[in-house]
């Protein structure tokens, strides 16, 4: 990998980070998430982060660290997950791209909520988690992207976990987000189809499971962050 030109190393890092995202979307078990760490053509996610750091590609570094946080959460490496999510917020904090900031905020909110689920259910951490989700939502709404429904879905999950809404209300909310995303997809010919699909998959998984528990949040819920 080191023998490659700088430009090619960046391309390889971007390619590997995208591949990690797809691997996580396809993951069915903890073992599948373990594979995200493995090297593909001599490069893994940690190498990606190093390359982005060396090349001072801040957005790439933040994106790779969010991926890493998501993967660590699935593998119950909670301290690492929080560290990577916090790092990615620090990296994009002073950058102009609102989407990257919102993406990092949603990742941290989700990691905090899931890694300390019992505390969150007792309404500890609520202020921090809801503030992150709302900040992210405002940014996403301002730039008019459909990722705002991811923020709303996380808020609905948080409310369900704290018994503010019941199971039927949660399903109704998720149904609404799927409809909105399907509608947005029809409006744009070459739009982002995968968001609607991921949201539908999540809704179906909640229906099948009948509840949301910690393992479900770690292995299924994390996929909302990758939409």
């Amino acid at each position, binding site marked *: 990998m080191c023998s490659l030109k700088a430009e090619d190393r960046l391309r390889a890092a971007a390619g*590997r980070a995208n591949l990690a*995202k797809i691997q996580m979307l396809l993951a069915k078990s903890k073992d599948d998430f373990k594979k995200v760490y493995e090297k593909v053509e001599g490069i893994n996610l940690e190498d990606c982060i190093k390359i982005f750091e060396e090349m001072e590609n801040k957005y790439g570094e933040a994106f790779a660290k969010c991926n890493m946080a998501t993967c660590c959460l699935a593998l119950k490496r909670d301290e690492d997950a929080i560290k990577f999510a916090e790092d990615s917020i620090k990296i994009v904090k002073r950058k102009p791209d609102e989407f990257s900031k919102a993406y990092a905020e949603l990742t941290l909110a989700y990691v905090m909520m899931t890694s300390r689920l019992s505390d969150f259910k007792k309404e500890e951490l609520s202020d921090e988690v809801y503030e992150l989700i709302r900040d992210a939502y405002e940014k996403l709404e301002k730039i008019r992207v459909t990722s705002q429904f991811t923020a709303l879905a996380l808020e609905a999950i948080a409310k369900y976990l704290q018994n503010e809404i019941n199971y039927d209300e949660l399903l109704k909310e998720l149904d609404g987000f799927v409809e909105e995303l399907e509608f947005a997809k029809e409006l744009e010919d070459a739009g982002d*189809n995968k968001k609607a*699909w991921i949201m539908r998959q999540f809704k179906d998984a909640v229906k099948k499971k009948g509840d949301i528990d910690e393992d479900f949040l770690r292995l299924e819920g994390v996929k909302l962050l990758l939409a």
Partner: protein
Amino acid sequence: MFFKDKIINRWSEKGYYESKFIIMDKLGTLTLITAESEDDLKRAHEYEKNILCAL
């Protein structure tokens, strides 16, 4: 002569792999964005893997 060899003759090996990378990169990104099923994601996975092979 295969298509690949023709391109290499005309634009060099570097040119061939650069073109392949760009095509795979675009295919991977578009397939991922427009994914509506697990099969679409698997195709995007293959394209992204090929990007790394092309480097």
